[in-house]
């Protein structure tokens, strides 16, 4: 486009556009006049009509919140329910002197400092024209006393509502998680249309993972109300649709036994059905009461909980990451047989192992040595020296591929939120994250489950289940069945579709061989867990593990008594039973428990006794408890 040409036609173009600009300006004025006349009609001509509408006769749309689905265990024991409670709600905007009001209400109703602290915290966070919860779960006397005096308190209402309640409290707290008030962050994340009238949402655990199933769908009600907000009549109503009832695979009896067996130690127990992957028990200790969180927890209580050194809020079964110690020796055994090593080949254990061209001694747990051992003896007696040599021979990448195929180092796909993947180190991983090469010494310690390797109790239970099912890796699941509470229509979780084919083809003869050695751990003459296998009514296969928390100096001596408790070894144990047709696979981790054989294995035995004896001798249940409880 030439500049001169453009210049020449400027005046003509300008006049065209200017005339249109004038026209546009006039149009804008006309439309503004139209708007203004409409607003004049609304605000002046029809003012009295609208004022009447606004003052005396509203049609209000009330959302009808859905009833949240129940959560039950596999036998129908209720784990999460909704109970009707009386609550006090306050609309701050309608209150003159808030402190005076709290003081006066406090004379009628027992207001704890916690209640007031949470209420005041929300006061700053949420709009003042919304209802704020002041006190939940008023008892009948308080409710009656307040109801009589309600007229004195403008802006305070007594309301009956459904309150989420976890009857088993801390026993199922970690698995279920809890619901809590919808926060600002939740609001940004959630679809507000689906949460009409809903005040709570799942924050953790099953409550969070299956939020969409549990929630249901809001209904609404069109009501006519008078100036005082009293309902005159219902014009139109669409009922809410309740959420699905969820039946979990948990067996609360087994859960309770596992919890009691852990006692006041820190640790986790996971038991699952090796055929289906259904989780039968998932316990983390210490635990917390999820009921504390439902109405908002006060800052002080929460701070107290998170500052406890025992970390009761942490679900160790899912989020705890531990060195697996010797519990992975059966997997290392499969790897070494696959590499062509004759399991009958004997290795001499003098109590330590040394790499060629190195003077560093890797100690066996038995300082005097196991003498001459083959693979079977090495599993039965958990000889470290044998497996040090295995590790040096296999190298990290071969070991890692076996560990991966047993489900370590990746998420299991369990139906709980934000599952960690644990860590299976490889040479490449170390180069990428630490800019360091992989050292042969790290091969050696990885073979006995030390070093970088990190596993979760759930992964250990899953690996145990894979050994039990002779090489089939299942996806652990908690949801067994969902049921529509209105129609009773149920939908089972499809188990078969969830299991994975093994990443590595595992030789059937090799795995039977390893399982024989694991059986010897429980029932053999020298088995490390023979004390826990003694006189059982069923055959068990297991493997103990003891994982170092601190490394011991080359010439140092591990002396449990002199070490602070939190630096003592973690005790681990995996097992399954019955050996031939396994019905249960289990993993136990006891933090700083010391030896796996002495501390973790007896816990697994108690859980299995309950599992089998309750089933086999249901009538003689109390008798069986006399022996084992």
């Amino acid at each position, binding site marked *: 486009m030439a500049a001169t040409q453009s210049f020449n036609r400027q005046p003509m173009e300008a006049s*065209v556009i200017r005339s249109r*600009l004038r026209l*546009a300006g006039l149009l804008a004025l006309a439309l503004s006049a139209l*708007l203004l006349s409409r607003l004049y009609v609304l605000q002046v001509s029809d003012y009295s009509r609208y*004022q009447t509408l606004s003052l005396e006769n*509203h049609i209000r749309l009330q959302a009808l919140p859905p009833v949240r689905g129940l959560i039950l265990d596999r036998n129908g024991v209720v784990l999460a329910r909704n109970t009707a409670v009386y609550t006090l709600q306050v609309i701050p*905007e309608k209150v003159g002197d808030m402190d005076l009001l709290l003081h006066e209400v406090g004379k009628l109703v027992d207001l704890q400092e916690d209640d007031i602290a949470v209420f005041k915290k929300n006061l700053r966070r949420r*709009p003042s024209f919304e209802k704020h919860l002041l006190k939940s779960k008023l008892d009948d006397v308080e409710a009656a006393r307040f109801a009589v005096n309600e007229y004195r308190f403008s802006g305070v209402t007594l309301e009956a509502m459904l309150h989420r309640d976890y009857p088993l409290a801390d026993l199922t707290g970690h698995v279920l998680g809890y619901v809590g008030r919808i926060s600002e962050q939740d609001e940004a994340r959630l679809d507000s249309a689906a949460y009409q009238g809903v005040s709570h949402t799942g924050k953790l655990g099953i409550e969070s993972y299956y939020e969409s199933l549990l929630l249901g769908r809001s209904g*609404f009600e*069109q009501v006519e109300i008078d100036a005082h907000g009293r309902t005159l009549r219902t014009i139109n109503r669409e009922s809410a649709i309740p959420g699905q009832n969820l039946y979990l695979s948990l067996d609360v009896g087994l859960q309770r036994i596992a919890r009691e067996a852990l006692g006041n130690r820190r640790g986790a127990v996971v038991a699952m059905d090796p055929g289906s992957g259904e989780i039968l028990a998932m316990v983390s200790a210490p635990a917390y009461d999820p009921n504390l969180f439902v109405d908002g927890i006060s800052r002080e209580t929460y701070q107290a909980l998170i500052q406890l050194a025992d970390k009761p809020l942490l679900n160790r079964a899912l989020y705890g990451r531990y060195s697996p110690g010797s519990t992975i020796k059966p997997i290392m055994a499969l790897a070494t047989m696959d590499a062509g090593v004759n399991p009958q080949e004997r290795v001499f254990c003098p109590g330590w192992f040394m790499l060629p061209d190195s003077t560093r001694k890797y100690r066996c747990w038995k300082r005097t040595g196991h003498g001459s051992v083959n693979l079977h003896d090495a599993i039965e007696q958990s000889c470290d020296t044998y497996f040090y040599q295995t590790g040096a021979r296999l190298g990290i990448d071969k070991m890692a591929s076996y560990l991966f195929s047993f489900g370590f180092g990746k998420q299991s796909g369990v139906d709980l939120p934000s599952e960690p993947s644990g860590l299976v180190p490889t040479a490449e991983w170390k180069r990428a994250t630490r800019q360091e090469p992989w050292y042969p010494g790290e091969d050696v310690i990885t073979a006995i489950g030390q070093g970088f390797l990190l596993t979760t109790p759930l992964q250990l239970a899953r690996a145990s289940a894979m050994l039990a099912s002779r090489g089939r890796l299942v996806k652990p699941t908690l949801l067994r069945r969902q049921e529509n509470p209105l129609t009773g229509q149920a939908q089972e979780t499809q188990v078969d579709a969830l299991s994975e084919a093994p990443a590595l083809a595992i030789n059937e003869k090799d795995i039977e061989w390893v399982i024989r050695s694991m059986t010897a751990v429980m029932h053999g003459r020298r088995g490390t867990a023979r004390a826990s296998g003694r006189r059982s009514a069923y055959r068990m296969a297991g493997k103990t593990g003891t994982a170092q928390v601190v490394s011991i100096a080359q010439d140092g001596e591990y002396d449990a008594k002199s070490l602070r408790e939190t630096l003592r070894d973690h005790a681990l144990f995996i097992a399954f039973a019955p050996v031939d047709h396994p019905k249960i696979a289990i993993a136990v981790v006891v933090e700083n428990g010391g030896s796996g054989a002495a501390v973790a294995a007896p816990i697994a035995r108690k859980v299995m006794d309950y599992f089998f004896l309750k089933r086999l001798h249901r009538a003689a249940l109390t008798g069986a408890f006399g022996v084992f409880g």
Partner: protein
Amino acid sequence: MFSGRRLHLDGPLLIGLLVLSALGLVVIFSASGENWSVMARQGLRLGISLVVMVAVAQVSPENLRRFSPHLFAVGVILLVAVLVMGAAGKGVQRWLDLGLVRFQPSELMKLGVPMVVAWLLTRSQVPPRFAIVLLALALTLIPASLVVVQPDLGTAIMLVVSGLFVLFLAGIRWQHVLMMLAAVTAVAPYLWFRLQEYQRQRILTLFDPWADPMGSGYQAIQSQIAIGSAGISGKGWLAGSQSHLEFIPERSTDFIFAVFAEEFGLIGVLMLLLLYLFVVGRCLVMAYHTRGTFSRLLIGSLALTFFFYVFVNLGMVSGILPIVGVPLPLISYGGTSMLTLMAAFGIIMGLHARRRLMA
């Protein structure tokens, strides 16, 4: 206003914008239930938007024109990208996640469409020949159709309108306007039956509030009660009982005018309309006095689009237009529309301030 001139700003327009935005903060404070953090966030957005406005005003008119097609092309590519990614996910997809910021390409097009049409029309003579008119329509309809399938009918309409305003200002012949209308009338039934059932339902809801009582219909009725019960002088700031107690979910965003009108009454409404008319009028005067066809067309069409926003929002809240999701410019809570608007005013100021440089 020496410094203002050096920054290529326009004093009267800037004052008008600042007064409107400040009024917006005041209304948002009330609509949010006196929530300071909501107001602080909106204040921050306003600050950022003003910085963007000043920055955009520094772009020279020549560069603005030269890069109009590039901006437009980038916008179309982003719109396609949003659709492709949206197809991979599910539901409504309007955002492009760029890691640090989430970005709505349809907002970019609110500037891109009028710019590219103004660019196209200044490549030949004005008023445009019929072939050029058709080309301009195509350039308008491509992004609009990409937006309408997102689905975001409101923004799509706004894009079409902004393109049409440029054509209108460029002196498009009335017989062309009639031909376009005839074509739309002929094609409309065909388009209607090409739509999916759920899309048709969505459009029908716009015209029948009671079809969706939990959503827009209820809002329309409640907002009219709120406005009407205010009377001439209003109920006073923070004292709008209908807005505060009733169930108007979008009272901080699309329906904020209901809150304003309830609290400030007809007097407030009149003041607000005058403020908007002042801003639009000032822009039209700037278009009138500026130099260069491109500047004139772009300033004029941006100003008219701004007015159209105001008209559609006030019309829908006061019940003379169907409910389309259009915020009230400079008053409604929300970041993206504020940013786009201020960028548009930056363009207007920059073009006008350097009118002497533009041949």
